[in-house]
């Protein structure tokens, strides 16, 4: 009896991973959401800031030294945007199976856990473990004072650690989501299978 129970469950899990259990539309939706969060929003924020600054530069009210400083800061900001997008690429790939498998499906859990854990890794990598360093060179060059370099080091490690805890909590959320949606998923699946069987029977009948 117990053996049968396990075999049934294994069969169910195996079916969950089958491509027929997924939804292409969901995969596209989740991918679009990830693209928005990890690429379009950072690029838009950068474009907005650099656009406003470039407009201010074009108005001709800034002196060349200030423009050079601002351009250096913008270049550093662009490096950070590129770094964020580069590190986010795995999140885009993970978004596809997360969206493809519906809630309540076993297959969704590992991808959700990996995505949540990778988000924690991304935070560590992007913020260099919560230690952000910005260096500027030739900041001021006047006759009386030359500021060769200024380095600003921001350490927000405790904040990053708290965010990592939130990411881990998000990983556990996938189990809660599974438990909460499993019944509905199985009902939907049964309904879907019934419809498919009916369609098949109808087709055979028509052919006959």
């Amino acid at each position, binding site marked *: 009896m117990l053996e049968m129970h396990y075999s049934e469950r294994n069969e169910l899990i195996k079916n969950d991973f089958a491509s027929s259990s997924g939804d292409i539309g969901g995969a596209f939706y989740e991918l679009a959401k990830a693209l928005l969060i990890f690429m379009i929003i950072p690029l838009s924020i950068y474009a907005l800031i650099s656009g406003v600054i470039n407009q201010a530069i074009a108005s001709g009210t800034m002196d060349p030294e200030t423009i050079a400083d601002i351009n250096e800061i913008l270049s550093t900001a662009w490096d950070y945007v590129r770094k964020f997008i580069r590190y986010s690429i795995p999140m885009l790939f993970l978004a596809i199976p997360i969206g493809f498998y519906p*809630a309540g499906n076993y297959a969704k859990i590992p991808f959700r856990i990996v995505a949540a854990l990778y988000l924690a890794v991304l935070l560590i990598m992007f913020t260099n473990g919560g230690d952000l360093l910005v260096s500027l060179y030739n*900041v001021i060059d006047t*006759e*009386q*004072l*030359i*500021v*060769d*370099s*200024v*380095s*600003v*080091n*921001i*350490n*927000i490690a*405790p*904040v990053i650690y*708290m*965010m990592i805890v*939130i990411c881990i*909590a*998000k990983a*556990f*959320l996938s189990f*809660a*989501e599974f*438990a*909460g*949606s499993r019944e509905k998923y199985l009902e939907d699946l049964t309904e879907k299978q019934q419809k498919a069987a009916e369609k098949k029977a109808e087709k055979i009948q028509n052919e006959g």
Partner: protein
Amino acid sequence: MNVLHATLKLFVILISLSLLALVVLAVYPVATGGLNVTQDEELTIETDPTIPIYFDITGQFTITSTMPYDINDVNPQIYMESADKSVRVDLYNEGEFTVPSNGSHTVIIDTKVLIPELLLFLIVDNQSSTSETGMYLPLTVEVGGSYMQNMMRLDINADIDAKVVDSGHVENTVTEYSGGNLIKITCVMTDVEGTLVSMIPEFDMTISDCPVEISVTVTEKTDGRYDIAFIVNSTDDSDIIDDLNSSTIGGMTINVSVNGSEPIPIFLNETTAKGFVTLIEKTMGAA
């Protein structure tokens, strides 16, 4: 979505939002002028009246904060540092303090700089100077502090060259040898002009238990400019650098006679003494 999932999701969202709100609320006052620094007493540099071999740097600032949290472990430092970072002389380093939330902290600057060390920094760091460019002092300014119960820390470090001599330049350093031993180093700064330079006295220095004499001669020219010579001389033809290095162990006592006055003994601890000797060695890089 069941109640458990919804509750947990809400919990995670609330924690994320609280963290974001905490950071924004804590940092926002900085952007809106939550920190203000006022100068109570102007920064002045004068020759020490009791031991005129030192410059006295004095000044007073008040840091006022209207921020919601204390700023802890604030440690402003100003120091002169050689390009290869081997020699460092602190100009201001009073240790860490706290700027309380909605309060203020007064920073009192009262520091002494040994004039020979300052001269050596000028010689070493301005070897490519010309009369037109003047001479700069290599300074490093550091300031840092923790905020929000040490959840955030900011450290700023700036490498600065401050112009202290309006015009003038360092001439090539001349070295003299006898029997393979370095017995004399002569460094000259020519046509120097500037408030700081006009305060430099003439002095002679002997080092206890060391056959080395150091003298600084200041020659005022008719155009108001100065020639300053820094001469290190061996009294027994032994190697200057070897003698100086061996006399740094455990610290060094220098006896300074300013403008021909009675010598005043000044003790330099081992680190300061080693830094002093390293700077003397570095002057030869000007050759």
